């Protein structure tokens, strides 16, 4: 009898797995339909837009590179949300952690690294970015562990503070003396710019993001530490009873998340911008959070969802050029995607 019971149970879980796949796909497609209806009110043909989105992405190397370029920071800030999520934490501070990471990286690049060869300069700059993000996430971690403050609220509040800190520096100590009073930092040395792949604007930052995603996946799913993190996230009580040092784990998970977002900040500076502005990485943190949600906090699936968000971002620029709708209108599409995923979450779990 027990065998029969096992078989029916297996059958059920097989069906449930297929069903959850279907619901997940539907949750991704439905928002595109809703947004399409919305677009038709503004006399934009959604099918044309979506088709051109696919064409730009897969039509040629340049377009593909553009999408990967957009997806890079989303992967990293997505990891900064996904890793803590596995430990049961909601880190929405990717935005601020990225900004402070970019600040640290630029500071080092401008003041200490401008004569360094690339082989030494770029890794140090990367480390500086990671430290910046880690420091900022460290604030959230200390407030969580010592002050018992909910990390969601503190990390969002600190995002606003981070933007003002970057603003303070680009208007003050980091301001380019030759900028005619524009608020941005001097340009970093050419040796510190990330190498670029031929015929595109794509830089090696993309590789860094992928490697880090694989490392996070490996640690989470193949190591003892990752197992402990997942236990903590799925059943805090069990983790307590098993004698885990919960506060210590919370602390270091948040530090690691901050470092990942900080690296995204460094990549933005060394790969694309070349100098620090107060607007560096605006919304990248929130979009990364979104990408992580879309991927159910799975580091490898995160690469796919970040890629999708990259496609939508590129389409946003297109939308602005061709139809005069503001590029921010794709933010609506992104929020719709997440609404559907959140709404279907319970169906999938069952």
């Amino acid at each position, binding site marked *: 009898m027990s065998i029969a019971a096992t078989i029916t149970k297996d059958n059920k879980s097989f069906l449930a797995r297929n069903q959850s796949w279907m619901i997940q796909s539907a949750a991704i497609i439905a928002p595109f339909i809703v947004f399409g209806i919305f677009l038709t009110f503004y006399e934009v043909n959604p099918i044309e837009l979506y088709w051109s989105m696919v064409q730009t992405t897969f039509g040629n190397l340049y377009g593909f590179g553009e999408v990967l370029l957009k997806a890079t920071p989303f992967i990293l800030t997505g990891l900064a949300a996904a890793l803590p999520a596995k430990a049961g934490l909601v880190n929405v501070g990717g935005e601020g952690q990225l900004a402070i990471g970019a600040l640290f990286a630029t500071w080092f690049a401008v003041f200490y690294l401008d004569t360094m060869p690339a082989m030494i300069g770029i890794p140090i700059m990367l480390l500086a970015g990671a430290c910046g993000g880690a420091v900022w996430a460290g604030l959230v971690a200390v407030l969580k562990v010592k002050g018992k403050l909910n990390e969601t609220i503190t990390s969002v509040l600190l995002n606003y503070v981070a933007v003002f800190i970057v603003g303070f520096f680009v208007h*003050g100590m980091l301001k380019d003396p030759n900028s005619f009073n524009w608020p941005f930092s001097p340009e970093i040395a050419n040796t510190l710019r990330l190498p670029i792949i031929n015929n595109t604007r794509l830089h090696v930052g993309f590789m860094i993001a992928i490697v880090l995603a694989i490392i996070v996946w490996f640690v989470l799913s193949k190591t003892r530490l990752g197992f402990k993190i997942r236990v903590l996230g799925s059943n805090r009580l069990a983790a307590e009873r098993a004698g885990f040092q919960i506060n210590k784990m919370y602390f270091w998970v948040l530090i690691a998340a901050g470092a990942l977002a900080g690296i995204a900040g460094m990549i933005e500076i060394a790969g694309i911008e070349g100098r620090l502005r107060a607007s560096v990485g605006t*919304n990248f943190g929130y979009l990364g*959070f979104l990408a992580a949600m879309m991927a159910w906090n799975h580091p490898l699936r995160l690469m796919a969802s970040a890629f999708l968000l990259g496609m939508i971002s590129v389409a946003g620029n297109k939308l602005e050029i061709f139809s005069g709708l503001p590029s921010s209108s794709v933010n609506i599409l992104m929020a719709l995607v997440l*609404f559907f995923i*959140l*709404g279907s*979450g319970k169906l999938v779990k069952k």
Partner: protein
Amino acid sequence: MIADILTGAIRSGTSVMIASQGELISERAGVINLGTEGSMLCGALGGFAVTVWTGNPWIGTLAGGICGLLISLIHAFLVLSCGANQLATGLTIMFFGMGVTAFFGKNFVSQQIVGFNPVPIPYLSDIPFIGKILFNHDPLTYLSLLLVPVLWYVIFRTRLGVILRAAGEREEVLFASGINPKLVRYLAVLAGGFLAGIGGAQLSVAYTHSWVENMVAGRGVVAVALVIFASWKPLKAMIGAYLFGAAQALQLTVQQQGLAISPYFLFMVPYVLTLVALLIVERRKQSQTPEALGKVLAGSS
């Protein structure tokens, strides 16, 4: 100068205050709504747009409230009917609010409105010092001052308040007395969204008389934080909101005085102050957290 800061505290704190009272209702019923930021943004734009069209700030404010309510309906549906994570849903709504208002607000950026203006109350506003601080504000601010005692009375002295608090503490009790706790929570979240929308409208229609993209700038998040700081008590939430307003007023005053402090440090003060306030209060208030809310904040619901 002190009178200036205190007047400014009320003037710029009112929007946060109204939103925090709304969030308080929602959290008392056990639902935390970070989408308050999105509701405020939509309230600010909706209120502004309708004021532009009708020329009547009262209708505009009402419209702002309704916009906020509609946005919070998304939160209520996803959280209460679909069982989505409250914090993640709230954040998405915040992001949605930014996108929607950036999109529809584009044409309103340079528009001008008459809006609400300060109405000094006769005789009372002539009292030295206090008169200037308390009795020279726009009509919405006077109304918001009435809101606090009314809300306190409803929550702690009426049957409705008991039902609201039961939804946040022990929903079984509501079940047993034949009331649907889900319905109570729905209504609480919608009431919260409505007030957040009014708060947003106060910002655009009464305080700045303009619409700027993302003008709420975290006030909704601050409102959520303040409710926790206030241990879910209306009067304390009001004090917290005016503290936030005072920090913002300080920034204007310092600039007018021409002191050599970077404005960026002053911009930070309200947010840092909110964090510090949370930190100080946190230690003493564990037991006061509505039980259903405690589960959300601990990540187990």
